[in-house]
């Protein structure tokens, strides 16, 4: 599966849920972080169900300093 994560191409053996992807990337899904697939936000409670599939654009963001 090829997906674009934060603007860069990544390849995975299989399709995954968001939760699985975060695990793969070793990202702690704590406060201050959110995920969108193809410009749609995935609520945290959907992480276990929401599937990432071939060609998806995934954004993983968090809060940082800004004015």
């Amino acid at each position, binding site marked *: 599966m090829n997906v674009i994560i934060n603007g860069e191409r990544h390849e995975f053996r299989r399709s995954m849920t968001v939760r699985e992807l975060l695990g793969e990337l070793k990202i702690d899904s704590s406060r201050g*972080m*959110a995920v*969108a697939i193809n*410009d749609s*936000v995935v*609520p945290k409670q959907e992480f276990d169900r929401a599937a990432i599939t071939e060609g998806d654009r995934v954004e993983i963001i968090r*809060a940082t300093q*800004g*004015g």
Partner: protein
Amino acid sequence: MRNKNLILGSREFSSRLIVGTGKYRDYDQTRQAIEASGAEIITVALRRLNLDNPNDKGLLDYLGKTYTLLPNTAGCYTAKEAVLTCRLAREALDTTFVKLEVIGDQKTLFPDNEQLLDAARTLVKEGFTVLPYCIDDPVICKKLEDAGCAAVMPLAAPIGSGLGIRNPYNLMMILEQSRVPVIVDAGVGTASDASFAMELGCHGILMNTAIAGSGDPVKMAHAMKLAVEAGRLAFEAGRIPKKLYATASSPVEGLIGR
């Protein structure tokens, strides 16, 4: 609108100073400056997580106290981008508060008011508490208010310019018409600018560069805290009228040797 506190949506704040968290030397300085500012609301940006180092401590881990976070949409040039950013922010930070920016020009960072209105209308419908960064135009401010924004946040001068309150007349017109709080966002350079804006009757001030870019951010944050309070008190007290000629402060009766 002479409430003791600053009321935004359903929430109430005793500090009228909102500060940004950008451009500090490090997180320590950020934390100390924010504390010195007395702010209860701080702005944050949303950016892509660095996948190479996904779990390094971030700003929020460094701030000792719990602040009300105000995520911004800095860097967005279209309504679509801004709306997505707000939705991500709500999810990430569990808040409906957003500082809505849609930039129209890279050089001036002035807002694109068409896109801004468009985004504001969408976000209000989705239940956001929208605080829009806009130009100091009474017509646009009225439209934003009519769209359901919780405040209007006209710029006083370009972001980071430090030029101060370039057009107090526009602010006066906005203040006179407005039924939501008017918060000056961008342009303040030093303490007297903040006092001056508050004396006009503004309900709050949002700033970042004036503090973070100063020679001593912690000291300047303290200055800004006092300046905002001073300006508000002066506004509430009601200043003396201006006049060309003098009035003696000492009695004119009982002069010696006359």
